[in-house]
């Protein structure tokens, strides 16, 4: 009796990867899941930070999908390695700073390495031709297979019938007739298949899972690079881009202002790394200053912070400023009026 074949499935937590893995299970393939954490994953971060979202159920969708499938899931931290993909994508960016094609190649490559290192047979993804404008097109599917190194050990069960047979199909490990020929942006075939499998609940039926596809987030990242004169970031940088209002009053510093209590609590964790300002005479936000501000800049930032507190209509607001050495002093300032905050300051 032939031994059971083993596939590693890229599990994003969305519907397509759920279905792709399940199609393999239906054919008797042993499946484990792999999920990559880039630092830009939308996955739950803003919910975890914002207090007003605390009532929403929090779950990691990739873990949830794995549990629905009854498979093991390996979550891999690729934050450092992924930087090169973000900085220098060979195939360029999408509409924003999303290097989708390079990202897919990178992840399939990592999964292929997993196959080789752990005695698995092939890689499975939930890709569908025409689903995404950059990474999931008929002409880019072979590019992913080739440049990832996976070649014909990459199987896309949801659109396999639109592609040349992969090795798992040719070798008879899986039955090509029981794979699918989905294409295009419509989600109806996937939803019908989900219903057939009994999946009544699933995440983000057509959503993105990466902040780099978000125009506002990408603008903040581009500003970060421009202000530093280099395409670099650390995890804290890209986490902070997800939190608060970001305003750049001067080229050499920006102010990150919490919008509610949960964000304020999150920003408190960074008080030792950034000059920070907090209103003490009135309830108000916590703000971090990123850059090298002069005393006048700090006074301007304080007026800005006061503008977002309860004292915005008061003639004076007292704030506490803490520097990087932990020393603090108080400033009494007049809050900026809305007309004194140019639109161009907002990132």
């Amino acid at each position, binding site marked *: 009796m032939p031994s059971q074949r083993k596939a590693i499935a890229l599990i994003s937590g969305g519907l397509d990867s759920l279905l792709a893995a399940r199609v393999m299970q239906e054919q008797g393939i042993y499946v484990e899941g792999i999920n990559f954490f880039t630092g830009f994953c939308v996955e739950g971060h803003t919910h975890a930070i914002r207090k007003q979202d605390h009532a929403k159920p*929090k779950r*990691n969708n990739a873990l949830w999908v794995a549990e629905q499938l009854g498979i093991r899931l*390996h979550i891999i931290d690729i934050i450092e390695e992924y930087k090169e993909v973000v900085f220098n994508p060979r195939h360029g960016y999408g509409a924003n700073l999303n290097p989708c094609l390079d990202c897919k190649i990178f992840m399939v490559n990592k999964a292929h390495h997993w196959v080789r290192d752990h005695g698995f047979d092939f890689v499975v993804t939930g890709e569908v031709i025409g689903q995404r404008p950059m990474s999931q097109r008929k002409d880019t599917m072979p590019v992913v297979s080739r440049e990832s190194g996976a070649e014909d050990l990459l199987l896309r069960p949801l659109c396999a019938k639109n592609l040349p047979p992969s090795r798992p199909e040719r070798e008879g490990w899986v039955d090509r007739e029981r794979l699918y020929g989905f294409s295009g942006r419509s989600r109806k075939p996937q939803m019908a298949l989900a219903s057939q499998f009994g999946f009544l609940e699933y995440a983000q039926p057509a959503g993105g899972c990466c902040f780099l596809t978000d125009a506002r987030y990408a603008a903040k990242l581009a500003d970060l690079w421009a202000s530093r004169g280099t395409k670099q970031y650390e995890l804290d940088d890209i986490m902070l881009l997800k939190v608060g209002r970001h305003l750049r009053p001067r080229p050499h510093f920006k102010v990150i202002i919490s919008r509610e209590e949960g964000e304020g609590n999150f920003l408190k964790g960074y008080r030792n790394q950034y000059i920070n300002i907090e209103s003490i005479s009135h309830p108000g936000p916590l703000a971090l200053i990123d850059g090298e501000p002069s005393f006048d800049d700090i006074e301007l930032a304080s007026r800005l912070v006061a503008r977002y507190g309860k004292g915005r209509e008061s003639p004076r607001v007292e704030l506490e400023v803490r520097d990087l050495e932990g020393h603090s002093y108080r400033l009494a300032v007049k809050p900026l009026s809305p007309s004194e905050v140019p639109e161009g300051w907002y990132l």
Partner: protein
Amino acid sequence: MSKVVVDARRLLCPLPVIRVQDKVAALMPGTRVEAVCTDPGALHDIPAWCRINGHHILETRTEGDEIIVILEVGNP
């Protein structure tokens, strides 16, 4: 019984799970691991990760802003 502590404070989902996963990979079955987290998502995610990977949750509790998850390494 001694236990291994994973400090995942200030880390957001899924980093607490990754830290636990990477620590558990090097431990013998039966070892106890205490994860200290601040992301409320860890309360659900670490137990979910344990369920699908054959480890056992012994206790979850909240202490102020911190979430404590204690698990026993299984033999998957």
